[in-house]
């Protein structure tokens, strides 16, 4: 494997050359280790040419694999969508529930306020407060109700001015 690795300085040499050189180095090292015992070793370099070996094309399998991949992708997508919806629904449910609680709380507040309004505007209370403020009931004829029937061209009955200290009311 050392022969295969390429260093920066060996970048320009080919693979076979590097392999040959490496083999020579190894042989020299083995000689030194042997310390005089020499065993004839014959090295043959055999080149295997596997370029003729190619995988036989299998279009059926390729199609099958593609189909399988597509199916898996779709299934995965469906699962993810389901999961997303499921957890979104749970989250939305919590959110809806909290909104419902808020809505109920606001409705109850609304009712409380309407009750307060009704209590504060009860005629007896208004009457009492008005009298305490020095107000009195209008006398007959003091309140004049203006009516806006018809337009300017319709004949209207001429009337004298309302009684003194009359109060215009609309």
């Amino acid at each position, binding site marked *: 494997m050392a022969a295969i690795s390429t260093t920066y300085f060996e970048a320009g040499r080919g693979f076979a050359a590097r392999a040959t050189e490496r083999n020579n180095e190894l042989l020299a090292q083995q000689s030194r280790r042997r310390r005089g015992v020499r065993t004839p070793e014959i090295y043959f370099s055999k080149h295997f040419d596997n370029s003729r070996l190619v995988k036989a094309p299998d279009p059926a399998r390729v199609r099958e694999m593609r189909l399988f991949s597509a199916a898996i992708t779709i299934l995965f997508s469906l699962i993810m969508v389901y999961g997303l919806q499921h957890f979104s629904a749970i989250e939305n449910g919590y959110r809806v529930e909290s909104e419902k609680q808020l809505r109920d709380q606001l409705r*109850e507040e609304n*009712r*409380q306020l*309407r*009750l307060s309004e*009704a*209590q504060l*505007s*009860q*005629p*007896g209370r208004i*009457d009492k407060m008005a009298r305490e403020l020095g107000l009195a*009931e*209008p*006398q*007959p*004829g003091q*309140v004049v*109700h203006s009516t806006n029937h018809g337009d300017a061209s319709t004949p209207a009955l001429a009337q004298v001015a309302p*009684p003194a200290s009359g109060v215009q009311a609309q």
Partner: protein
Amino acid sequence: MPSPLRPSRNRSSATRVPPFKRTRFWLVCLFFFIWALVIAGRLFWIEVVRHSEFEERAQKQQQRTFEVAPRRGVLYDRNLRELAMTVQVDSIYAVPTEIDNKQAAAQMLSAAVHTDPDDNQTTEDQIAARLAKNNSFAWIARRVTPEVAARVKTLPLKGIYFQKEFQRFYPDNEIAAQVLGYVGIDDNGLGGLEQKFEPQLHGVSGRVYTAMDARRHVTGSSEHEPEPGQNLVLTLDENIQFLAERALDHAMEKTQAANGTIVIQDVHTGQILALAIRPTFNPNLSRHTTPELLRNHAVSDVYEPGSVFKLVTYAAALDQHAVTPDDIVDCQGSVITVAGRVIHDDKGDHFGRLTIHEALEHSSNVGAIKVALKVGQDRFYQYARDFGFGSRTGAELPGETRGLLRPVAKWGPSSIASIAMGQEVGVTPLQMVSMVSTIANGGVYLPPHVLMPGQVDGTAPNQRMAAPKAAPFKPGGDLPNPLPPGAHRVLSTLTAAQMRKMMEGVVLYGTGRSAQLNGYSSGGKTGTAQKIDPATHLYSKTMHVASFAGIAPINNPVIAVAVIMDNPKGAYYGASVSAPVFADVAQQVLEYLGVSHDIDVRTPRAQAKAELSVAEDDAPEHVGDIGALYAAANDLPTDDPWRASSTPPATAVQPGAQPSATASKAGANPGSKQSVAVLSGPQKGAGAQGAQKQPQPLAGEVTISEAKRLRVPSLIGMSVRKVIEQAAASGLEVQISGNGTVREQAPAAGTAVAPGTKIVVRCGR
């Protein structure tokens, strides 16, 4: 050496495959198959065949149901102002097992929650007793105010929790209390509309179904939301109701009457705009309510209308063309004898020849009787029925009575005379106001209603869910077309117009002058009737019912008002007691509604000049046949609320004497004519049979004995102590008003009365 590729044929190392036996295999398979079949069959038996049985057992074991209270419907007035509504309030409960020092906790809690001295559920002892039971739950106080809840929250106590509950509030306090009613602690209606429409107002309770395991842990739950109650819109106008109640308060203060009623009705629709009753109560403080206060006098009480009923008499005669308003009637010096019974006009009146409208203006009994005799009793009775008397109006109020109006077959010979004067007949205030409304709107009887139409009768689509609509009262409408159910024409339009004119004459020239308005024309009729003394079961000389029924304005009436004051002290005539109340109420209501003035407005100085002395109207001395009145009460069906709630009706014991002789004796002795006339009983016809066989008094009935009569002693000038002693010695009761010596007494000295009669004396210094 054998090749590694060839299998070894050495016998010692060869693996022996046992021979395959098919039968044994199939037997084993069969065995397992049968076993599986048995299991499957058993599963099928348990899960399919006995499914419902096990489901039921499981539910009973695991399921707990909690009821969720629904929100009660709102009661609105016609302008959609809330008269009764429900909101959530805090209720306080404790978990006693979490509280260490229960006595100290009870003391602190009681100090915070015990705000009403009459509430005996929040005293320290009560709270301590509940905590001492050591359960897992104990109420401390229910439905407390926000201030109380805030106080409890500040207490340094463990084991105290809050829970929301519904509470019914009546924002206007006492206004229309008898009409609305109130609710009890469990949110169920008690009285009034709350009771009458309990199914609609209550709603449908929700359910929470929970499944619990053996350790009572909740494993799952499902919920059915509660359905809130239906909101109802009443025909009442809150402001008109307030005006009526304020006027009634003034009148009650002035007259010290036992109770008072004002009913205001829209003449064109029959809707009740106001129904005021005194004394009243506050529905928010239902703990202090008594059954007497809950009683709706407008529908549950009957009274003899007296002269107000003359409107029916004259209307019938005009409609039958028996008389015209300008015809002359001879009042014979204000005395008439009918079937041996002598009847007078008011004391001091000696009318001769009067026109019909003058006879009504001056409330001549003789004139009314003669007019009724011209109509005839059958047609007169039919008109009374057409006006709604003697039958329920159908107003949406509980406890309504039919009133007392006997069929013609049971009339005595002088009944037509009595009924023409408004005696021997019992009416409710609601019937009375409906009668004047009929005259006001042109002659069509419209049943009175308290509830806006189409809410509970199923005519409105999705009535439960429909949003309530405001229907402010606008004066000047026409009769509805088509007429509502129960409506029918009673008088012709001309007759109704003639009657309105005559009613205006009563107010302008007759006994109803106190009912004149400023800037508006008005018409009506006063009435004064004696009440029956519950002690003696005879007509009382001191207890009266003063009434006035009127309409305003005259030419295009907007409202009809009936004012009934029960047992006013001091002045007791309808003219002086009820007519001014009508004037007060009608003036304010018409001004509030913005009705245009149809006559000139008088300045305050001119108004003061116009306040004339009140002309007293019909005399209370001329009483009807009290026995007939009791007979009418006895004839009421047993389901009539008035019969169930009133004192037991009485029957007059027939003396057995000849009617004519008795009647002549009555004529000779005016002072005691009432008692004898009452006891003379039925005269001819059906009466003769009654005279022959003595009616046996039924259980619970009272018989009136004619045996013992007492003369009222003179108490004038006596001190209070002496008055009491004298009355006790005479066997009479006394009611004293004022201090000092006696200035006036009623009945007058020398009057023959039954033992136990109440004498009213007024003292002064």
